[in-house]
C-alpha cells in the first residue's frame, strides 16, 4: 500500500517559488509537505552539485545565493522542528481535488512516483500519496524551443540545459559553444560557460537592444538587473565573447553531431536578410533558448482560469494572494508568468503565507519585478516570421519525428489549426515528452505563418492527464475509491 502523508499545506516544487512557499507556510504555523522531482532543494535556478559530495558550496555562477542560503536555513530549521516533511526524488503524476463533504472543506491529493526507478540510488524513496487541505504549485518551467534545421543533432541543447549541466556537475558539456535565441537569460548561460573555461564563439540574440527603449522605466525599476547586466558585460569583455543582435541560427550543421552553425541577420519581424549569412565552424555545443514555457499540466488538471502572458505563454490567473480560480489552490513562480527567481521567491512567500491562512500584504517589489518581466518579454519576442526558418523536412516533434511539412499539410489539407488536432492527425506531441518540447512550435504552426497561438491551442497541448510517466504496476496497486 502506498504510504499516505497528510499536511495542512502541500507544496509541489523546491525551486525558488516552492521553497519559499514551504518556508512561509511552515513559519505561519502550518504543517507542510514539500514534494520535488529533484534530489535536493534548489529547482532550476539554484541547482547545485550534490551536497553528498560537495557539502560546502560557494554559489559560484549563481545569483541570489544568499537568498537561497537564507531560505535553506529556514527550511532546514522547519524540518528540524517537524513542520516540513520533505519528499525529494518524487514526481507528482496526478493532482486531484477532494470534494468537500459535510464538516470538511475538501482538499487535495497528490499521487507521486520516483523520478528515477533505480535501485542503486540511496535517496530513492517509494511512491507516496500526499493529502492536504491547501495546495501550492510551483512546478516552474523549461526552455521554450523553436525548431530549426539540424536542431535534433546531438550537441544541440537547451540553453537552460547547459546551465543546469554546469551547475549540477561542475563541468562543461563541450568546448566550443554558440548560444542563440532571445532574452537576457542567454547572458548568464554564456557567462557561466566562459567562466568555467569554455569558448563561447558567439551569443546570437534575435532581438535588438533598441527594443528595450520603450521599456526603460520598467527596467529602471529593478536596478539589480542593470547590475547583473554590467557583470555579464564585464565577463563578455574579459573572455571576448561576441554578442550579436538581430542574428539567428538558420541551420545547425553536422551529420551525427553538431559541427557548426549557419547564421544570418534578421529584420525586426525575424525575416532573414539575404546576403548576411555566415558560418561558424568547429562548434560542439549549440544552446537554444527562446524564453521559457511554464509547466502547466498540474494547474490545468484542476481546470483553473488561464491567460496568455506577454511572452505568449499560457499561465495561471491568480489574485494578490497567489490563489488561483480554484479555492485553496495557490500558484507561484513561472506558472503565473515567467519572471525570474526573485519574483518567484516573492510569489512563493505570499502563496505559502496565504495557504497557511496568514495575511499577505501587497508587495511593491513584486509589482516592480512583474513590470520588468513584461518589458523583457516585449523586448524579446518570439520573432513572428520564425516559421519561415523551417525547411519542410525539419523535425518539429523530436519524439515522434514529425516534420514541418507533415504539420503544414495537416493544417492546409485537413483543416487542423490547433495543437490538439495537429497531434491527432500527425502524432506531434504524442511521444515520450508529451508535447512539452514541440507544443509551442506546433501551436504556432497550427495558427499559421506569422500568427501566435491562442489560449485554447496552448491549453490543448499542455493538458497532460499524467504529469509524469508512472508504472502500470503502480497504477494496478493504487488503493482507492473515488466517488
Amino acid at each position: 500500500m502506498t504510504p499516505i502523508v497528510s499536511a495542512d499545506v502541500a507544496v509541489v516544487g523546491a525551486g525558488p517559488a516552492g521553497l519559499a512557499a514551504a518556508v512561509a507556510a511552515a513559519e505561519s504555523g502550518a504543517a507542510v509537505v514539500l514534494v520535488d522531482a529533484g534530489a535536493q532543494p534548489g529547482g532550476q535556478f539554484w541547482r547545485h552539485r550534490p551536497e553528498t559530495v560537495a557539502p560546502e558550496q560557494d554559489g559560484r555562477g549563481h545569483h541570489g545565493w544568499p537568498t537561497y542560503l537564507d531560505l535553506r536555513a529556514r527550511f532546514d530549521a522547519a524540518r528540524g522542528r517537524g513542520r516540513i516533511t520533505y519528499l525529494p526524488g518524487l514526481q507528482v503524476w496526478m493532482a486531484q481535488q477532494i470534494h468537500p463533504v459535510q464538516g470538511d472543506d475538501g482538499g487535495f491529493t497528490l499521487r507521486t512516483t520516483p523520478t528515477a526507478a533505480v535501485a542503486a540510488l540511496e535517496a530513492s524513496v517509494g511512491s507516496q500519496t500526499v493529502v492536504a487541505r491547501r495546495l501550492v504549485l510551483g512546478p516552474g518551467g523549461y526552455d521554450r524551443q523553436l525548431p530549426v534545421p539540424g536542431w535534433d543533432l546531438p550537441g544541440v541543447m537547451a540553453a537552460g540545459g547547459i546551465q543546469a549541466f554546469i551547475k549540477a556537475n561542475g563541468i562543461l558539456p563541450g568546448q566550443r559553444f554558440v548560444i542563440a535565441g532571445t532574452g537576457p537569460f542567454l547572458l548568464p548561460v554564456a557567462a557561466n560557460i566562459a567562466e568555467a573555461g569554455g569558448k563561447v564563439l558567439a551569443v546570437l540574440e534575435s532581438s535588438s537592444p533598441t527594443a528595450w527603449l520603450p521599456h526603460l522605466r520598467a527596467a529602471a525599476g529593478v536596478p539589480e538587473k542593470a547590475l547583473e547586466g554590467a557583470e555579464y558585460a564585464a565577463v563578455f569583455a574579459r573572455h571576448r565573447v561576441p554578442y550579436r543582435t538581430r542574428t539567428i541560427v538558420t541551420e545547425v550543421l553536422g551529420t551525427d553531431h553538431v559541427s557548426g552553425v549557419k547564421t544570418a541577420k534578421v529584420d525586426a519581424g525575424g525575416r532573414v536578410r539575404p546576403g548576411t549569412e555566415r558560418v561558424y565552424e568547429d562548434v560542439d555545443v549549440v544552446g537554444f533558448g527562446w524564453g521559457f514555457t511554464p509547466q502547466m499540466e498540474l494547474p490545468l488538471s484542476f481546470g483553473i482560469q488561464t491567460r496568455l502572458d506577454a511572452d505568449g505563454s499560457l499561465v495561471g490567473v491568480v489574485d494578490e494572494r497567489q490563489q488561483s480560480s480554484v479555492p485553496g489552490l495557490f500558484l507561484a513562480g513561472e506558472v503565473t508568468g515567467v519572471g525570474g527567481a526573485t519574483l518567484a521567491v516573492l510569489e512563493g512567500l505570499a502563496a505559502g503565507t496565504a495557504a497557511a491562512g496568514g495575511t499577505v500584504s501587497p508587495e511593491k517589489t513584486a509589482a516592480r519585478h512583474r513590470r520588468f518581466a513584461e518589458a523583457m518579454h516585449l523586448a524579446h519576442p518570439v520573432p513572428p516570421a520564425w516559421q519561415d526558418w523551417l525547411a519542410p523536412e525539419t523535425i518539429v516533434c523530436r519524439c515522434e519525428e514529425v516534420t514541418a511539412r507533415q504539420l503544414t499539410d495537416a493544417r492546409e489539407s485537413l483543416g487542423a489549426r490547433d495543437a490538439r488536432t495537429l497531434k491527432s492527425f500527425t502524432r506531434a506531441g504524442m511521444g515520450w515528452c508529451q508535447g512539452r518540447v514541440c507544443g509551442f512550435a506546433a501551436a504556432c504552426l497550427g495558427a499559421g505563418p506569422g500568427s501566435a497561438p491562442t489560449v485554447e491551442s496552448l491549453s490543448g497541448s499542455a493538458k497532460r492527464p499524467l504529469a509524469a510517466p508512472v508504472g502500470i504496476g503502480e497504477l494496478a496497486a493504487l488503493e482507492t475509491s473515488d466517488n
Partner: protein
Amino acid sequence: MNSASDVLVIGAGVIGAATAYFATQQGLTVTVLDKGLPASGTSSACEGNILVSDKELGPELELTRYSLGVWHGDLAEHRRLWEFESKGGIIVASRESSLASLNRVMAAQARYGVVVEKLDPDTLRNAEPNITPDALGGARYPEDCQVQPMLVAAHLVRLATDAGARFVADTPVTGFLRSGDRITGVRTPRGDFSAGSVVNCTGTWAGELAALAGVNVPVLPRRGFVMVTEPLPPMVHHKVYAAEYIDNVGSSDAGLQASPVVEGTPSGTILIGSTRERVGFDGTVSTNALRLLAGNAVALFPFLEHVKAIRHYHGFRPYCPDHLPVIGHDERAPGLWHAAGHEGAGIGLSAGTGKLLAQALSGQAPDLDLSPFAPARFGERKENSTTHREEATA
C-alpha cells in the same frame, strides 16, 4: 441563408464524414457542419478497432460484416491515408468458466460465417509469447483490423470536399427549419442552411439535436478510459482481450467495468483500453478506472507491470438503451435522418453506415435492411418549440 444542398450532415466525426463521403459519391450535393473541427468529438477519444470478434449475433454483427466489406472494398484505395492494418484479434480465456463461454460464442459466430480459429495454450503462446501463463486457451479472429480514426474522419471530409462537398467548421446547429411538418434545414450562428435532407451525425450529442427537432432519440454517454504506455519494441502482436470483455460490451450496468483490450501500435506504444461506465459527461479522472485498466492489463500481460504509462485519455461512447445504433429516416420528423449511437463500435461501423445511408438518401434500397436501426423505435414525437418555421425554402 446559405445556398441549399441535397444533404446537410451535422457532425464531422467518423459517422458524419463517412455519410458525407458516400453521399457525395452518390452524386448528391452535400454540406457538412460541425461545431468544431473534423474529429473533435468521440472519434478523437477512442481506439480504432474494427472488431468482428466482440459482436453478438444479430443486426449489429450484420452491419459489422457489411462495413468490413466496405473498408476492404470501396475504401480500399484510401487505406494508407488512415493507416489501415489487418492484424487480427485474439480473445484469451484464463478461467474455465470464461473458456466455456468463449467456446460457445465461437461456435455460434462460426455458424454465422465469422472466421474464427480456436487456439490451444501452445498455439496461443506462439501467437502471443508474452501472454500470461494462466491463459487456458483462446480464439483468433483474422478479420479484426484497425484504422487511425482521426485520420479517417479528416480524410473522408477532405475527400468529400475535393469531390464538391462543402465543410463548415465552428458552426453549431442550434435549431431546425421547418416547412409544415417537414424539416428543411438548420439554424446556426452563421445563418440558416437549408437542405433536402438533414442528417444528425452528432454522436453522443444526437439526443440533444433530436430534441431540437422534437423527437426522442435516447443517445447517452458511456465513458471510457484508455491508457497508453511508453514506446516499446513489439511485445503484443494482435488486439488481445480477455473473454470477460464480451459480457461487458452488451451490459447495461451503470457501474465501472473494464476488461483489457491490449494492443501494440506501429509507434511502439501499447494501448490499454478501455473502461465502460455510465457517469454522464463527467470528465474528472477516475483513479478507480486507471487501477482497473492497469490491473487487468497486467493480468493478461505480466510484463506490463514494469512498463510505464505515459498518457491516458477518455471519451464518451454514444449508446442507446438497446445497444443498437440509430440509422435512417425519422418518420416522426420528415426530412430528418439520423446516424448515431454506435457506442463502442462507431469507427468500425462508420464505413457501412455511411454507404447504406447514402444509398437511402439518394432513394435507392440500401444493400442491408436498416429497419432494426429505425429511429421510430423510440416512439412518438414530443412537442417542442425550438424549430423555426421557415418562410420560404428558397
